[in-house]
C-alpha cells in the first residue's frame, strides 16, 4: 500500500491541478447550467434556438472545411519533409512551428493585409478579394495555423514508417505505388488524420477569426458561448451550450489522441533517405507543394511585419510604433503598452513554470511505470476538449467568487494558460524522457549515489534540452494566448494579444499592426531559442 502511495506521488500534483482548475469548475458550471435550464425541455430549447444552431453549423462547416483543406495541402509537404533529407530540412521543420506559436490575431491581421480591402495580393489579383472576408477568410486563417500542424504530424508518421518493410515489398515485386499502399503509406495516413482531427478541433472552436473576419453570422460555438456570457449576460445558456460542445467534440478529440499515440510507436527504424537519384516527377511535385506551403506562411507573416515597418497613414517610417507606445493608445486601452508587455511576460513565465514543474515528475513517472500512461492521457485530453472559452468561463464562474473578485484575475489567467500548455509540455518532454535508460541511473546507484543523486547526475543532464524545449514551448503558448485571457482579464492585467484585439476593435490599425509586429518578433525570438542546438518540438 505504501509502495502504491509512493508510486502515485509524482502524478498526484498534475492530476490534482487538472481536477481543481479544469474538471471541477467545468463540472460545476455544467451541472448548474443544466439544472437551471429547467429540465430536458429547457436544454433542447436552448440548443434548438436558431442562433445556437447556426453556431453549431458554423463550427462543423468551418472545422470540416479547414480540416479537409489542411490535410489536402499539408499531406504532400509532410511526406516530403518526413521522407527525404535535403539541405535546410531541419530549419523548415522548425519554421513550420511558428504559426502555431502565434496569437490567432496576427494571422487574422495577415489575412486582412494580403486579401482584405487594399490588401497586397488583392491589389494585383482582384479576383482573390473573396478570400478577404466571410467564410473564405476564416478558412484561410485556420489554414495558416493548421496546415503546418498537418505537415509536422504527417512528417512524424512518415519518419516512423518501416524502411525495411518498404524495401522488402519492392524486392517481392511491389511497384513504388504498391510499396506506398502496403508498407509506408499507413503511418503517413495516421499522421495526416491526427492533423486533420486537430485542425477540425482548433477550427471548429476558433474564436478570433470569426469574430474579426466575419462577425456574428459566422460565430462558432466557442464565439457564441463568449457572446452569451460576456455580451448577452446569459451564463446559463452559455453553460448548456458549452456542455453540448464538449459532448459533440468528444469524438474528434478522442480520435486525435488515439492517432497521436499510434504515431509515438514507430513501426521501423527512423532512416530518412536522400532525394532520389534523378528528378522523379512525384518528388519534384512534392517539393514544389512544400515550397508553396512555406511561401504562403512566410508571405502572411511577412505581410504583418512589413505593415509594422512601412509608413502608415501620412506618417513616417516607424510611426506605427510611435502610435503604439503613445499616450492615445494608453488612454484607449486603460493601461500603458509596456505594462501589457510586462503582464504578458509575467503570465507566460508563471504558466510555463507551473506546466513544466507539474509535467516533469508526471512524465518521469510514466516512463518508469508505463501503466500510468492512461492517467496522463486524461490530462492531455481535458484541455484539448474543453477549449479556452469553456475553461475561462468555468474558471471565472467557479473560482472568482472563492478567490475574491477582480483581485484574482492574474491568478486565473496564469492558471488557464498553464492548463492549456500542459498537454504540449508533456508531449515535449515525452521524447527526451523516452531516451532515458535505467542503465545510467542504475550505474550511478551502484557507484553509491542515492536515488535523488542518481536522478540529478544520470537522468537530468540527458533531459535538460527537453526541459528547456518544454518550458519555452509552454512560454510561447502563453505569450500568444488570447481567447481565455481575453475572457478573464481586466484592463489592469491586459496582455499584448488582448491589447491588439482592443486596437483592432477600435479600428486603430496602425497601432494594431505595430502590436502584431511586436508579438511576431517576440514569438520568432522564442522560436529561435527553441530551435537553438537542433532542438525539436513534438506536437
Amino acid at each position: 500500500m505504501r509502495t502504491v502511495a509512493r508510486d502515485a506521488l509524482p502524478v498526484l500534483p498534475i492530476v490534482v491541478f487538472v481536477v481543481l482548475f479544469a474538471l471541477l469548475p467545468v463540472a460545476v458550471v455544467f451541472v448548474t447550467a443544466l439544472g437551471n435550464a429547467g429540465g430536458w425541455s429547457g436544454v433542447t430549447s436552448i440548443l434548438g434556438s436558431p442562433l445556437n444552431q447556426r453556431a453549431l453549423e458554423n463550427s462543423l462547416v468551418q472545422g470540416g472545411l479547414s480540416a479537409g483543406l489542411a490535410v489536402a495541402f499539408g499531406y504532400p509537404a509532410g511526406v516530403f519533409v518526413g521522407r527525404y533529407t535535403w539541405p535546410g530540412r531541419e530549419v523548415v521543420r522548425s519554421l513550420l512551428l511558428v504559426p502555431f506559436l502565434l496569437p490567432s490575431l496576427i494571422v487574422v491581421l495577415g489575412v486582412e493585409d494580403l486579401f482584405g480591402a487594399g490588401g497586397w495580393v488583392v491589389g494585383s489579383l482582384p479576383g482573390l478579394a473573396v478570400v478577404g472576408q466571410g467564410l473564405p477568410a476564416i478558412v484561410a486563417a485556420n489554414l495558416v495555423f493548421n496546415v503546418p500542424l498537418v505537415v509536422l504530424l504527417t512528417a512524424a508518421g512518415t519518419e516512423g514508417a518501416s524502411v525495411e518493410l518498404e524495401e522488402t515489398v519492392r524486392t517481392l515485386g511491389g511497384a513504388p505505388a504498391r510499396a506506398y499502399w502496403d508498407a509506408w503509406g499507413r503511418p503517413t495516413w495516421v499522421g495526416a488524420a491526427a492533423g486533420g482531427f486537430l485542425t477540425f478541433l482548433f477550427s471548429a472552436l476558433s474564436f478570433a477569426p470569426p469574430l474579426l473576419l466575419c462577425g456574428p453570422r459566422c460565430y462558432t460555438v466557442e464565439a457564441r458561448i463568449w457572446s452569451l456570457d460576456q455580451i448577452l449576460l446569459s451564463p446559463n445558456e452559455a453553460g448548456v451550450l458549452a456542455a453540448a460542445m464538449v459532448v459533440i467534440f468528444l469524438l474528434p478529440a478522442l480520435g486525435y489522441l488515439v492517432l497521436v499515440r499510434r504515431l509515438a510507436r514507430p513501426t521501423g527504424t527512423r532512416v530518412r533517405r536522400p532525394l532520389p537519384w534523378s528528378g522523379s516527377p512525384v518528388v519534384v511535385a512534392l517539393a514544389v507543394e512544400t515550397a508553396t506551403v512555406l511561401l504562403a506562411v512566410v508571405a502572411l507573416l511577412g505581410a504583418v511585419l512589413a505593415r509594422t515597418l512601412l509608413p502608415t497613414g501620412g506618417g513616417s517610417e516607424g510611426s506605427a510604433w510611435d502610435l503604439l507606445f503613445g499616450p492615445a493608445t494608453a488612454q484607449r486601452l486603460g493601461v500603458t503598452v509596456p505594462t501589457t508587455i510586462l503582464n504578458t511576460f509575467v503570465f507566460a513565465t508563471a504558466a510555463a513554470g507551473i506546466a513544466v514543474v507539474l509535467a516533469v515528475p508526471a512524465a518521469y513517472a510514466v516512463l518508469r511505470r508505463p501503466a500510468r500512461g492512461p492517467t496522463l492521457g486524461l490530462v492531455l485530453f481535458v484541455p484539448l476538449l474543453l477549449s479556452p472559452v469553456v475553461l475561462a468561463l468555468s474558471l471565472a464562474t467557479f473560482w472568482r467568487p472563492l478567490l475574491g473578485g477582480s483581485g484574482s484575475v492574474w491568478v486565473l489567467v496564469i492558471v488557464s494558460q498553464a492548463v492549456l500548455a500542459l498537454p504540449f509540455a508533456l508531449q515535449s518532454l515525452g521524447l527526451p524522457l523516452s531516451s532515458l535508460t535505467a542503465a545510467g541511473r542504475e550505474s550511478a546507484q551502484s557507484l553509491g549515489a542515492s536515488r535523488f543523486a542518481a536522478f540529478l547526475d544520470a537522468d537530468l543532464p540527458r533531459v535538460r534540452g527537453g526541459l528547456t524545449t518544454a518550458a519555452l514551448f509552454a512560454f510561447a503558448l502563453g505569450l500568444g494566448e488570447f481567447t481565455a485571457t481575453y475572457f478573464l482579464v481586466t484592463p489592469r492585467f491586459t496582455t499584448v494579444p488582448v491589447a491588439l484585439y482592443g486596437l483592432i476593435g477600435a479600428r486603430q490599425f496602425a497601432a494594431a499592426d505595430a502590436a502584431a509586429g511586436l508579438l511576431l518578433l517576440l514569438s520568432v525570438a522564442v522560436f529561435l531559442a527553441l530551435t537553438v542546438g537542433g532542438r525539436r518540438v513534438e506536437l
Partner: protein
Amino acid sequence: MSSSDPVLRVEGLSAAWGPAPVLDRVSFDVGPGEMFVLLGPNGSGKTTLLRCVVGLERPTGGRVRLDGVDVLGQPVHRRGIGLMLQEAALFPHRTVAENIAYAPLLQHRGRTEVEEEVARQVELVGLTGFEDRRPDQLSGGERQRVALARTLAARPRLVLLDEPFAAIDPERKADLRAEFRRVLRAAGISSVLVTHDRPEGLFLGDRVGVLFDGRLERVGPPAAVFEDPGTDRVARFLGYNVVDGPSGPEAVDPRDLRLGPPASGAWDAEVLAAGITGAERLVLLQGSAGRRYEARGPPAGPLPRVGERVGVRWERSIRLRESPTAKEAKNEPGLNPA
C-alpha cells in the same frame, strides 16, 4: 545459356557516398544453386554491394547481370531478386500465411496455386501449424523463417541475405543457419549472404569473398581461403596472427603459436591476459612494438601469469602479400620462425 552459366555476374561494380568511394570495381559470379558469402568487417561495403545488386542503390560504375541480362536499368520490383534483412520486416497486421501469400498474389497467381505455394513454403521452413499466427506471436527465429518463406514464395532467381541471423539468440543461431542452408538448397536457389561473422560465413558458403574498404581481396572455397588468406588483413580478419617473416608478412594460426621461457623462441612477449574459453586456453600477448597476438591450445596445464615474459615460436606459417593500406603496421622487428 548452359546450366553452369552464372546466375549472377557482378562486373567492376563501384559505388560512392558523395566523394567517398564505398565499392571499388568489385567482380564476382554466383553459380546455379550456389551460396556465395561476402565476409568483411563493418563498413567494408558489404551491404552497399547487396543494395546495388538488388537496385536499392545506384552504382557509379560496373554491371550486374542476372542470367546474362544486365539488370541495372531495371527497377527493383522487376529484377526478380529477393532480399532478406536483419529484421524480418513482416507485415505486422497480416498472418504468417498472408505474409507468405503476398508476392504470389502480386503476381496474380490463381487462388489454388497461391494456397499450394503457401502450404509448400510453410512446410519447407518448418512452420506448419503457425499459418494463422501474427508476427508478434512469433520468436525472432520464427519470424526470420517466415521472411525466408515469403521471399522464396516470390520465386526469385537469386536471394540476397543481409546478416539475417544477427538478431537471433546465439543458442538458436546454429540451427537456423543450417535450416536456411537446407531450405535454399532444397529450393535450388542461388544466394548471396552478407555477414561479418567469420565462422558463420565459412560454415555456410560454397564460396566466400572477403571485402575490405570496398575491394574484394580474396575469393574462393572456404577451406582454400582459410588456408591461403592472401593478404595480411584478410589473414587478421580470419583470426590469424600476422608476423613479419624474412620475405614479408606471414600468417600464423593461434593454435600453432608455442610459448616457452624468455629468450627460448623467436622473440619475447608480455602476457596481457590468460584464461580458458571452454574447449581451449587463450593467451593474449603483446610484442615489443606493441602488436597483439593470440595463442590458443588445449586447456590442460598451468596458465602463464599476467605480466610474465614468455618466448614465442611457431612451426608453421603462411606467406602473405601486404594489403595496400597495411604498410604502416610494419614496425615489428623481423622475426625468424623456429
